[in-house]
């Protein structure tokens, strides 16, 4: 038990990256603009001027940073957004794929189990369509009808 406890204490060595810690802090503290209220007047002093200076530094940094937005970054953003949309479309297609697959297999097995050809089979219909010669001679109509039905 003691060994596990002391080993667990070693996990305290886990520390956030310094860069992340700093950026997170800056982002956090600049995320709401503090409107000086009555408390500000009550607490004039070193802590106040430090806070104001920090806000000023952050404000200047933010402007400099924002002005470096590039159209190239936005285009890359659009590219990645489009990619995500594509993924969504792929997943949408997959949703129906399985049920199509199940139907296909079922039909295949029915075909293997049954007598005679399936008259909705594509190849069969295409073959028949090619062999159909459409002409105006009424005598052929019955023959044509027979071909289609049988």
């Amino acid at each position, binding site marked *: 038990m003691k060994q596990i406890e002391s080993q667990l204490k070693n*996990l305290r060595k*886990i520390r956030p990256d310094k860069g992340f810690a700093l950026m*997170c802090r800056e982002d*956090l*503290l600049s995320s*709401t603009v503090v409107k000086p209220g009555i408390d500000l007047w009550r607490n004039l002093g070193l802590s106040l001027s430090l806070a104001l200076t*920090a806000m000023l530094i952050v404000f200047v940094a933010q402007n400099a940073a924002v002005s470096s937005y590039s159209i190239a970054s936005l285009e890359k953003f659009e590219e990645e957004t489009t990619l995500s949309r594509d993924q969504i479309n792929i997943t949408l297609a997959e949703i129906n794929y399985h049920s199509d697959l199940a139907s296909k297999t079922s039909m295949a097995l029915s075909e293997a189990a049954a007598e005679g050809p399936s008259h909705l089979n594509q190849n069969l219909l295409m073959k028949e369509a090619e062999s159909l010669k459409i002409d105006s001679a009424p005598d052929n109509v019955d023959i044509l009808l027979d071909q289609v039905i049988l």
Partner: protein
Amino acid sequence: MLEDERNLIIRAKGGEAEAFGLLYDEYLPKIYRFVLLKTGHREEAEDLTHQVFLQAWRNIRNYDDRGYPFSSWLYRIAKNLVVDYYRRLRPNVSLEDCRVFPADEVDPETDLDLSRETEKLARAVGKLRDTEQTVIIMRFVDELSIKETAAAIEKSEGAVKLIQHRAIQKLKKLMTEEK
């Protein structure tokens, strides 16, 4: 607890960013560690940690310290965000894929084997049930009291003791199996 934490909290509630910044400095390593040990992914841990403090800063006016430690409040926010993360069932990158200790962050005097051993332990912690993980991290890594831990996970102090005991037994078993 941070010295004069109560005063800092009052000032932060009043909107003083610098006061909250000091609270952030104090609790960032703990919250980050907690989230990293639960998610096993450094990038996710950074994102979630950022969210924890953002949420805390935005809602600090709602925090009421009557018998409810600030640390517990932060941990509860962290816990809820981690639950949301799991609910989304993101692919879980294991610690094998992202070293928790990049070589240059290890104390040069520390034996490399110790670092590997600690990684093994971190993996074992990751295999515990969610509540057991939470208790272990809070109690032994971040040294919260039983009372603070109970407040954070909304269970009784007795329940925390029981969970802690079970978790330690499981960790022992997992560490033995890994050898």
